Structures are given as C-alpha cells and as structure tokens.
C-alpha cells in the first residue's frame, strides 16, 4: 500500500524541526511548522513553507496539545505528521489519534511505541528475542523480602529503576542489602510522583559502562537493517552531550553481534521506521540491552555522516509504504563523525541553563563541518524549552581528524550574549582519555572532578579581554567627553555626569 505524502506537519520546534523541514525539502515535500507565541520568529517557522500558531507559551499549552496539532494538520491538509524527538514523539496516544484522523504518523505503530515505552515490557520482549540483558528482576517488585532475595541473586551493587522511567528519576544505586529497603521505597515514591507509576525493578549495576546504541531502519515490507553504532558515553545528568560513530572499541565482530541483536528485537516487535536500540557495554565488551527509543534520536547525524544515508528521507520513504532504499550490504561506515551538542548552559556552574539574546551568533563552516541549528543571530533563547542551540558535527577519515576539526570548529564558533557549552566541549576534545578513546558514562566526574576550575580562562585570554574592556571604555569615554564638552558649551548639566562616568560606567 502506497501513501501519498506531499505535505508534512512538523510537531516540534528548535533544531529538530529545522532538520525535518530540510528533510522534507530534500524530498520536494511541503514543510508545515507550528509555533508557540515565543517561537513566532523562530528558525523552524522561517525555514518552513507554512506556519500556524499554537496560541500559548509553555510546552503544555502548545507543542504537547495533541488536539491543536491534529486540527492544524487537518485544516492545512497535511498528509503526515513528523514528531521529531521529545514532545509527542513517543506518545502512543498521539500516534493513535493521528491514525484516527487519517494522518500518517511518521514512526512505528502505537502498539510498538507503547510496548517499547514500558521498560519492563521492553525487557521481556528483549529476553524473548534473545538479547543479552544485565541480570535483573524479571518483573516489577511487589514484595520486599522477595525483592531482597532477587537483589542478592543478581549480586550487589544493584540499580533500582522505574518501569516508566527516564532521565535518572526513580533510579538508585544500592551497594549492599542494608540500604536496599530504604532505597527501594524512595525510588518507588520518586517514580510515582514523576511518572504517576510507582513500579520499579532491580538491575545489575554495571561499573563504568559505555553507552553504545545501534541505529535501525525497518520498512513495512519486512526489511530491517542496522546502520552501525553510536557511542554516547559522555553524559551529564544522564543526558548525552557528545556522541560519535563508529565507537573506538567496537570491532567488526561486535558490531555485527550488536546489530543482529538490534534487528532481532525490531523483528520480534514488528518495528517500522527509524529506531535506536540502546546497550550498556562493560569493560570486557559484554553488551546488555538497555531500551529502545522509538523515534529519531538527537544524535542521528553522526550515523548519517559515516553511512551516507539520510535518515529523515528514509523515514519518509517508509511512511509512504516504499521499501528501504538500501540493504544491509549497502551499509558501509566510512570515516568518523563526532557530534557536540551546543547548549545555552553554564557548564562551570553545573550546566545551568542560560537564556538571553544571541547578540552575535556565527556558526563554523567549511571542510568536514555540518551544523544542525535551531537558532539564528539575533534570536532569543526562550526560557520555556530545552536550551539546545545546535548540534555541531565534524567528520574526518580518522577519529583524530574529526577531533582536530571539532577543535577548529569550536574555536571558530562565535556566540555573544549567552554562555554556552562550547568551552566544555573544547575541554573534552583536548582531554587525553577522550583522545585515546577511554570513555564511560562517568567520564565527566572522572576526568573533571573540579569542572569549574578546568573551565576557567587562561591568563592570556583573560588579559586580552581586560585590554578589550579598557580600550572599549576609552573609546566610549572619548565619545562621552566629546558630547559633554559640547553640551557644557550650551549650558547643560551634563558636565557633572561626564565627570562621574569615570567612576562607574553603565553601558
């Protein structure tokens, strides 16, 4: 069955909405943006062909309101909705609502989203499909003494995780039986309040794991392929910040085994579209199933750069009912790609979001640089949404070249007006362990126990900035003096303030 898709509504904002609009344009499809009030002049609105208001400010009032989005899609006659990531991307109810309104939801079926969105159900599916899993309780915990026995069998340290979880909420590391019960209760209560679902389960805690994931693509004709791995071990607050492909530790054999595992669970669940199967990899390179993300990932560009495929284009192909444009044999990784997420955050202050106006904003370009951005010069980073400004991707024939190009590109990036994670990314690119490919999800704590100190200015940099302040002040002062002298002649009371301005400048 072929579906006609000439117009796609993008139910998202920021860089991913821009990325999807570009994907539509690459396929000759009309891109429709939706926007909240603060996003009226956002890049995704300006790059799209059509744009309709969601009338409201917060995500809850706008990008999360299913009915508003469906209504706009119907009135502008969109054939399909692309959800991006976040917001409604993994919402089975929204996928169902699209189907009910004869709009194609670009993603897997509501049933698959629901199944894989529940971590316990996903674990069961993974076990059935023969994937390796970290030893864990087979179901959610109801009985504390029984749970203690299970934890003992798994062996401490263990991890208590929320069944409906994500983002580290409802998660606890337990080192011994004594602290087990208290931790379990806290995790359950946290999970209850965060997700409205207090179910938790126990998993073996893997020390210093790598986070490595497999990109898959599946069509409606039963073809399932994997596009190799991405290493996403560098995380802050359980959120990825730097990703790359290939991983420095994945051999051709390991890639095949992880890829086959990812394909197995996709086949077992009837997966369709783009998806990511996440694994933890321990120091002996054993890998354990973590979860499946039933959407396009933030970090998909690194896969695109090394395989040469356009994942949004393939998503649209699949949604149209076509076969994938390639087979497993066509997937060949070439070179290396690294992605640095550029957040409006002050890394030195613990990655607190910074909002404000991009007084100057100039992206790096040239050989080996791809940038997927959600903002333009003069834009304001709104306080209401995720502070991701852009994703900077560099490529090279070798990992070393990709790193050097990333350093070059980060140094070339100009952002005036808000603090960003550019200095943090530079720090990582110049870190010896990173350069040697020695990574784990504890990378940041391990390498930069005093991150604020590591991020402080060099003496030389600071001195140049101090000189700049002095020179700009001098020029500004000369101007004020000139004006003051002029006014003094005409008898204005400016003379006094002219003198005072030497003391303290407001400018």
């Amino acid at each position, binding site marked *: 069955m072929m579906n006609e898709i000439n117009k796609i509504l993008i139910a998202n904002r920021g860089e991913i909405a821009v990325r999807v609009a570009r994907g539509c344009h690459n396929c000759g499809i009309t891109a429709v943006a939706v926007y909240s009030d603060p996003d009226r002049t956002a890049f995704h609105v300006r790059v799209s062909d059509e744009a309709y208001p969601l009338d409201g400010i917060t995500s809850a009032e706008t990008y999360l309101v299913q009915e508003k989005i469906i209504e706009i899609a119907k009135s502008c006659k969109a054939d399909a909705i692309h959800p991006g990531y976040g917001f409604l991307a993994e919402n089975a109810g929204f996928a169902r609502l699209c189907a009910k309104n004869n709009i194609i939801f670009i993603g897997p079926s509501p049933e698959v989203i629901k199944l894989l969105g529940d971590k316990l159900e996903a674990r069961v599916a993974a076990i059935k499909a023969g994937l390796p899993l970290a030893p864990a309780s087979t179901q959610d915990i109801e009985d504390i003494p029984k749970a203690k026995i299970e934890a003992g069998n798994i062996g401490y340290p263990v991890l208590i995780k929320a069944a409906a979880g994500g983002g580290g909420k409802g998660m606890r590391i337990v080192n011994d039986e004594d602290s087990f019960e208290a931790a379990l209760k806290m995790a359950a209560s946290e999970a209850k309040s965060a997700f409205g679902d207090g179910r938790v389960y126990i998993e073996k805690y893997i020390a210093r794991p790598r986070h490595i994931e497999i990109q898959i693509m599946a069509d409606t004709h039963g073809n399932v392929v994997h596009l190799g791995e991405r290493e996403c071990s560098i995380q802050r607050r359980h959120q990825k910040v730097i990703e790359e492909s290939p991983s420095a530790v994945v051999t051709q054999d390991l890639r095949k085994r992880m890829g086959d595992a990812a394909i197995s669970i996709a086949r077992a669940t009837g997966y369709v579209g783009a998806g990511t199967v996440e694994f933890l990899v321990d120091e002996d390179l054993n890998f354990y199933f973590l979860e499946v993300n039933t959407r396009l990932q933030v970090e998909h560009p690194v896969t695109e750069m090394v395989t040469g495929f356009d994942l949004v284009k393939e998503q649209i192909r699949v949604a149209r009912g076509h076969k994938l444009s390639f087979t497993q044999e066509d997937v060949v990784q070439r070179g290396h790609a690294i992605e640095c997420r550029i957040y409006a955050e002050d890394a030195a202050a613990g990655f607190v979001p910074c909002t404000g106006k991009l007084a100057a904003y100039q992206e790096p370009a040239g050989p080996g640089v791809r940038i997927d951005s959600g903002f333009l010069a003069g834009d304001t980073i709104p306080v209401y949404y995720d502070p991701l400004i852009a994703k900077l991707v560099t490529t090279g024939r070798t990992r070393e070249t990709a790193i050097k190009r990333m350093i070059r590109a980060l*140094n070339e990036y100009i952002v005036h007006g808000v603090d960003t994670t550019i200095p943090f990314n530079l720090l990582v690119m110049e870190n010896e362990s990173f350069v040697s490919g020695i990574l784990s999800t504890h990378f940041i704590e391990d390498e930069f126990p005093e991150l604020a100190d590591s991020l402080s*200015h060099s003496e030389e940099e600071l001195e140049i900035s101090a000189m700049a302040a*002095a*020179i700009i002040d001098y020029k500004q002062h000369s101007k004020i003096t000139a004006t003051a002298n002029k006014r003094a002649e005409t008898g204005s009371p400016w003379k006094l303030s002219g003198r005072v301005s030497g003391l*303290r400048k407001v*400018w």
Partner: protein
Amino acid sequence: MKKVQVSTADKSWDFVIREEDGQMLITQNGSDHPVDLIRLGQSRYSLIIDGHSHEIGVDGSFDGYRIFNGSRSEKFLVEDFELARIKKEAGIEDTVKQLNVIAPMPGLIIQINCSEGDEVAQNQPILVMEAMKMENDIKSPKTGTIKSIAVALGDSVDKGQVLIEFA
C-alpha cells in the same frame, strides 16, 4: 592619555591608553602594544592587538562590561587609575568585587543553602532554583561573606533579580 585599572572579582590589571599619530597604543608593565579596534555591529568589535586578531562582544546589560572573547565571557570593571587608588585607600570596594548573585533565568526558589553572615567559597552551591523543568544549583560567584539574602523559599523570581548580596 588615560590610565585605568581593570578588574574582575579576583584579578586586576593597570593599563595606559594613548594615541600617537593616529595609532592607538595600550601599555602594560612598560611595554607598548599597538591596537586597532573596529566596530562591526551594535556590540561587536574586531580587535587587533600586536597583530593578533580577536573578535570581541560587549554586553550592555551588565553594570560594567561583560566581554565575550571566543566562546568565553568575563565581567570587568574599568576605573580611572587614580580614583581606584583613592577608593582603595579609603576602603571603598568596587562593584564587581561586591558582585551580587543574580537570577540567571526566571524560576522558583526551592532551596536556600546559606545564611546572612556566612563565609562562602567560590562555586559553593548556595541556592537551588527550579526553572526549565530542572533543579538548578546556583553557586557563589566568589569567595566572600553574605551580606543579605533578598529572597525567601518559594519565591518566584525574574531573570536578573538580585538574590543574594555580598558584603
């Protein structure tokens, strides 16, 4: 010619700036550095010092100068050298050294980890704000003594609002 003192919370520099035959020079520790400053836009400059090319941004919303250089920014106070000397002798502290803690974004104060009169270290977490669906640690910008806490638990604050004042 102008002699100035430029300072951050914990460092300071003395510079002399003068113009000779249309060439601007900045002098530090007796050595002259030729300067070429050209405005590129509202708050953006191309600065060439000693042949080294820098792209500088200035933020006008800060009480003093917030200078963007490359991907980093720092706040500076520029004062007349003599005035700075007199003030120092008179025991008057200047603005950047008194640095207040300002709300970096609108949000809700959900924790206060310090009291008035406390000695705090630079980067010590002193407040927690809920904003952008996250809990954000607000850290002390300097080592010093807390003069007053301008907010209470549960307060909703605007961006730029003073939260804590240093002595």
